[in-house]
């Protein structure tokens, strides 16, 4: 836990130049006093690149504000980005929390039903007023059950009931989409109940939490915000010596390095397992190490205790160049933003250099003189946490490894189309379905570079767009002779009369330069035409990252309708009745499935 005093947080906030940051509006609905969380929310918001504004609902008015017809102005509306619900069980259900002993089983059952209805109604009420992400703090709090050790023996004991309340809430939230349970248990365990709660705050101010708890809770909330906003990190860049194994390969050699099933070698082996777990979750793994390249690969190939394999590594810079330059090169080679990288090293010198030279890269320094903590560092860092897990995630690491092989091939051929032909690409363009929804939503949340409008949608929003007659959600799926690239492009059309509006047009960075965008756009326009549209409109909404697609629509024949000083540009294209021109023949096969 970061050590920072309350006054220091206030000072940082009052001195921050927030004018240029995007505003992020959080509304807190609560049945407890929790205003003290505000500075921490703003502080962690600032660290995630937002100027945070927090509004609080009235004390113990969650239901009224969520469900009530009279809208409280500015509390829940289209401007709201996040609704944080602090609904404490002590206030919510005195029957379960305080009375419990001697309460009739039927009454307890009725109480659970009441709570389930309450959760449903409040979540529905919030959803009707705003599309904002809902973060609902677990109602479960630490307490000693009234029946002591006996309580632990029964599923429907007091603790069991509270657990059941949490399960009911979780189930409700899951059915809403873009609504998440924020657990407190792991935060409480980190510092212990005595520091997490403050009884003086409870009895004097109706606030159960200590300031440390507020800090942890605010930090936790922003892990959700970052994940939903596409700010989760995508790539882990690792040093080798004293990270993947103990010792220095250039000096200690294959036999001398520490890597085994006993201390200290086990520490490094466990660390490698954590790296592999991240790889399986879809994190791209790269190496950046000062070594002779052949020495490192020798360990990978010959050491019996190596868990990591060359097949896990998407790119590497094993050389004597400075690491800042290496990281820049890796980001270019992998075609990912430098701000989606995390660099891990044991050397304070290298960490400091990277922090100064490429501050966009998040750094992790292994704790000095405490190698037993190494393996925990990755599972605790939370930088790679995401809110959706799609089939692509589990194989993304491999996809990037395949991409590296494609690049090698590209180096040998100079004409792009002949290169693309050698890849034997098979493209499928189709309407989104149940199975592809999570990945399509994820692409809208994560894609920053080739993304014309950068509109972020949740699973639920994609699903309702797909279900509506007034819109279509298309995706493209790519495979080639090196393997699957999976779903890599999304186009969302919204229809209005005879006009099709391109609401989203994006391409995953691993599909750039392969003419996928031409096929996707061409077929999307074809679909619009077949539905009777005579015109297509499109927009370019500039961000710090999507400059590369500024000229995309003009290049595809669209004409500019207007352009405001911020660079927001609108385009139009007349759809000719006789169909679109023939497109590049660089694909082995293109299948279109619009039924």
């Amino acid at each position, binding site marked *: 836990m970061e050590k920072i*005093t*309350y006054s220091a947080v*206030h000072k940082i906030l009052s001195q921050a130049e927030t004018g240029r940051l995007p505003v992020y509006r959080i509304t807190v609905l609560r049945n407890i*006093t929790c205003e*003290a969380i505000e500075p921490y929310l703003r502080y962690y918001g600032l660290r995630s690149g937002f100027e945070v504004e927090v509004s609080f609902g009235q004390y113990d008015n969650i239901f009224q504000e969520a469900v009530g017809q009279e809208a409280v102005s500015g509390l829940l509306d289209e401007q709201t980005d996040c609704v944080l619900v602090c609904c404490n069980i002590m206030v919510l259900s005195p029957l379960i929390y305080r009375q419990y002993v001697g309460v009739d089983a039927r009454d307890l059952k009725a109480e659970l039903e009441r709570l389930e209805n309450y959760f449903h109604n409040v979540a529905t009420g919030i959803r009707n007023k705003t599309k904002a992400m809902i973060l609902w703090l677990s109602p479960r709090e630490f307490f000693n059950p009234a029946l002591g050790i006996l309580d632990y023996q029964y599923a429907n004991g007091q603790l069991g009931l509270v657990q059941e309340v949490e399960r009911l809430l979780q189930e409700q939230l899951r059915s809403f989409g873009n609504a998440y349970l924020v657990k407190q248990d792991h935060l409480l365990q980190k510092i212990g109940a005595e520091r997490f709660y403050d009884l*003086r705050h409870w009895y*004097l101010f109706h*606030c159960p939490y200590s300031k440390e708890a507020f800090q942890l809770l605010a930090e936790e909330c922003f892990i959700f915000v970052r994940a939903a906003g596409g700010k989760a990190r995508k790539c882990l860049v690792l040093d080798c010596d004293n990270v993947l194994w103990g010792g220095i390969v250039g000096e200690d050699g294959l036999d001398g390095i520490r890597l085994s099933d006993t201390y200290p070698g086990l520490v490094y082996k466990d660390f490698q397992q954590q790296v592999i777990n991240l790889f399986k979750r879809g994190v791209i793994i790269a190496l950046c190490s000062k070594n002779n390249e052949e020495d490192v690969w020798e360990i990978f190939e010959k050491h019996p205790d190596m868990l990591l394999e060359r097949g896990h590594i998407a790119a590497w810079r094993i050389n004597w160049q400075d690491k800042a330059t290496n990281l820049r090169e890796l980001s270019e080679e992998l075609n990912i933003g430098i701000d989606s990288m995390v660099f891990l090293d044991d050397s304070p010198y290298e960490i400091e250099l990277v922090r100064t030279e490429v501050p966009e890269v998040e750094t992790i320094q292994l704790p000095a003189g405490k190698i037993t903590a190494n393996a925990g560092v990755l599972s605790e860092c939370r930088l790679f946490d995401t809110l959706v897990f799609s089939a692509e995630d589990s194989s993304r690491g491999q996809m990037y490894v395949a991409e590296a092989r494609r690049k090698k091939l590209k180096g040998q051929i100079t004409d792009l189309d002949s290169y693309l032909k050698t890849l034997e690409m098979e493209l499928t363009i189709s309407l989104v379905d149940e199975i592809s929804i999570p990945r399509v939503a994820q692409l809208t949340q994560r894609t920053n570079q080739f993304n014309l409008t950068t509109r972020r949608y949740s699973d639920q929003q994609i699903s309702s767009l797909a279900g509506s007659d007034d819109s279509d959600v298309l995706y493209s799926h790519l495979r080639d002779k090196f393997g699957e690239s999976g779903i890599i492009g999304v186009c969302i059309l919204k229809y209005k009369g005879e006009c099709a509006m391109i609401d989203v047009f994006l391409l995953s960075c691993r599909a750039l330069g392969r003419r996928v965008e031409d096929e996707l756009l061409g077929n999307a326009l074809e679909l619009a035409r077949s539905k009777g549209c005579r015109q297509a409109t499109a927009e370019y909404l500039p961000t710090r990252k999507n400059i590369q697609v500024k000229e995309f629509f003009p290049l595809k024949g669209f004409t500019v309708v207007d352009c405001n000083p911020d660079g927001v540009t609108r385009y139009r294209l007349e759809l000719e009745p006789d169909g679109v021109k023939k497109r590049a023949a660089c694909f082995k096969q293109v299948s279109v499935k619009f039924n």
Partner: protein
Amino acid sequence: MKDKVMETIAAILNLTPGKLGENVSAESLEDWDSINHMKIMIALEEEFGIELSDDEMMEMVSMDRILEVLNGRK
């Protein structure tokens, strides 16, 4: 010590220390409500490295009372 208390209270209430005026108390400062009182107590505990008792936390509603408690801890 008084200056440090002033600064702490001002930071929580989002004022410059000069703007607090002569009589620094919950009664005279509109923004010093129960919510900000809790924040002020959190900040004072941190700044002076102390833990306040239940009653102290309840009673420290003016500069004089705050200094009284802090002086008693020296």
